[in-house]
């Protein structure tokens, strides 16, 4: 046991750090793109504040197209775009772009669902009070949807962790890559177990954190 820890701790530690790097950086950019995208989808819906059939359907199409491509294919499919954007297609840097493109539409969809759950009556009440649409988005829609948004982001983060496992294919490392290279290719079963164990803890932790945060914000 001690020998195992001494041998593998640095490597596993490094993988954990890589996974965290990928998840945190991609999540940040995915939120930055996904949230406005989700809001826009809701607002351009027929009957909403900025109702616009063309934009609405275009956004839906884009989201659906990206969401239909499995990550492993997306990763290679957009290689030229990745190269153009960050100058490299390998390493953590190279994998961030596909991870963001993979996660952002997912977040947009989840956000859309959350926002649509907000009681239309409250929005109407604020409109009747003469509050600006922009303020209603922030102070009514996003505010009321917070618990549901947090749960959505939790789901997105967990699926993002899953996607990072494939990052090894472009040499970005991470826990998934570790399990694959050492656990599978080299039959180091212990490493496989350790990695899976860490992943389970990670996902559990994120899910309970999300649940707890959502429960605290939810008041009904």
């Amino acid at each position, binding site marked *: 046991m001690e020998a195992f820890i001494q041998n593998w701790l640095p490597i596993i530690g490094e993988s954990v750090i890589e996974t965290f790097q990928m998840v945190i950086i991609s999540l940040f950019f995915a939120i930055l793109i996904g949230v406005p995208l989700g809001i826009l989808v809701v607002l351009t819906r027929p009957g909403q504040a900025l109702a616009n059939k063309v934009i609405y359907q275009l956004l839906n199409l884009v989201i659906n197209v990206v969401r239909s491509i499995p990550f492993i294919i997306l990763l290679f499919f957009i290689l030229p775009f990745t190269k153009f954007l960050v100058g490299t297609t390998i390493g953590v840097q190279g994998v961030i772009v596909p991870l963001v493109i993979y996660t952002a539409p997912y977040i947009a969809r989840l956000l859309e669902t959350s926002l649509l759950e907000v*009681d239309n009556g*409250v929005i109407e*009440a604020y*409109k009747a*009070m003469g509050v600006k649409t922009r303020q209603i988005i922030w*102070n009514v829609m996003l505010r009321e949807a917070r618990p549901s948004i947090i749960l959505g982001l939790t789901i997105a983060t967990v699926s993002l962790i899953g996607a990072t496992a494939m990052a090894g294919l472009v040499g970005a490392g991470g826990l998934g890559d570790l399990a694959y290279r050492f656990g599978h290719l080299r039959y180091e079963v212990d490493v496989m177990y350790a990695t899976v164990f860490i992943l389970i803890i990670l996902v559990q932790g994120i899910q309970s954190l999300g649940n707890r945060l959502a429960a605290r914000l939810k008041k*009904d």
Partner: protein
Amino acid sequence: MIKLENITKVFPSKNGNVTAVNNVNLHVKKGEIHGVIGYSGAGKSTLIRLVNLLEKPTSGSVSINGTELTTLSPEKLRQTRQKVGMIFQHFNLLKTATVYDNIATPLKLLGYDKQEVKKRVEKYLKIVDLSDKQNSYPSQLSGGQKQRVAIARALSQEPEILLSDEATSALDPETTNSILDLLLKINEELGITILLITHEMNVIQKICDYVYVLENGEIIEQSSAIELFTNPRKHTTKKFLDTISQRKLSVSLISQLKLNGTVTRLTFIGENTGQPLLSQVSQKFGVEPNILTANIMELKNDIVGNLVIHLVGEQEQIHASLEFLNNQGVTTEEVEGE
């Protein structure tokens, strides 16, 4: 104060156009409470949303305080809306905000400074009698308390007009009464003009000065509350009146009674005009009045009495008695049997 002229609202739908509101004219004077009553689907909700342009009219004009709303820029419309408070059947409060924040948030968004916000929240929570609940969340409140918060939220903008969209429809009878009392208080003490829609005749009875009966998007009858209660003309209006008083007798009973006499409804204003008149009739004309139903309805400003009597006697004497009653200011109406 509020003036709707020839307002029509048509909703396009797959099966052709639906006219929700058809050529409605409505004029609410300052300081009065006007009520629109109608069954579900009559167009009430659409009508009240046309007043603050939550629904845009297909044609016609909406003016508030002489300002035509339909031609205002979005920015000017927003400013006008701030002077028109609105309350709803389902309260429409922020679930994730405390009572205090539910009232404070719109004020902050409308640009009032912190001190003014605090002052107003406290003032209006006191008016609706909920000062001790300011840190509660809506889910911890009863329906009546939620509506009070919504009323405080509407009042905190110090509007001149309050629109009430079925504000008591989700409440039990006792809570309904307390909310109606609050609306009366707001009307009397703050001088706020109120336009409400409802399907409950007791709401009209208790607080309205003037009533519109809406059916299929059209106003089929309108009059002061006292006139409507003493002299309803349309069938729908009578049906609404039947919901609050025991006006209705079974057709078979009436037919049976009619074999020897008439069944007549007497309506009079004031509380004690009915009884002495009946004994006078009995003495003068030798008829026997037998009271079948009787009730007194307290309107906002008046009291209306309602008696259904069975008059037994000679045809001629009955006729003379009814004429006598008419001359004394009592409305008489023969109740139809089969």
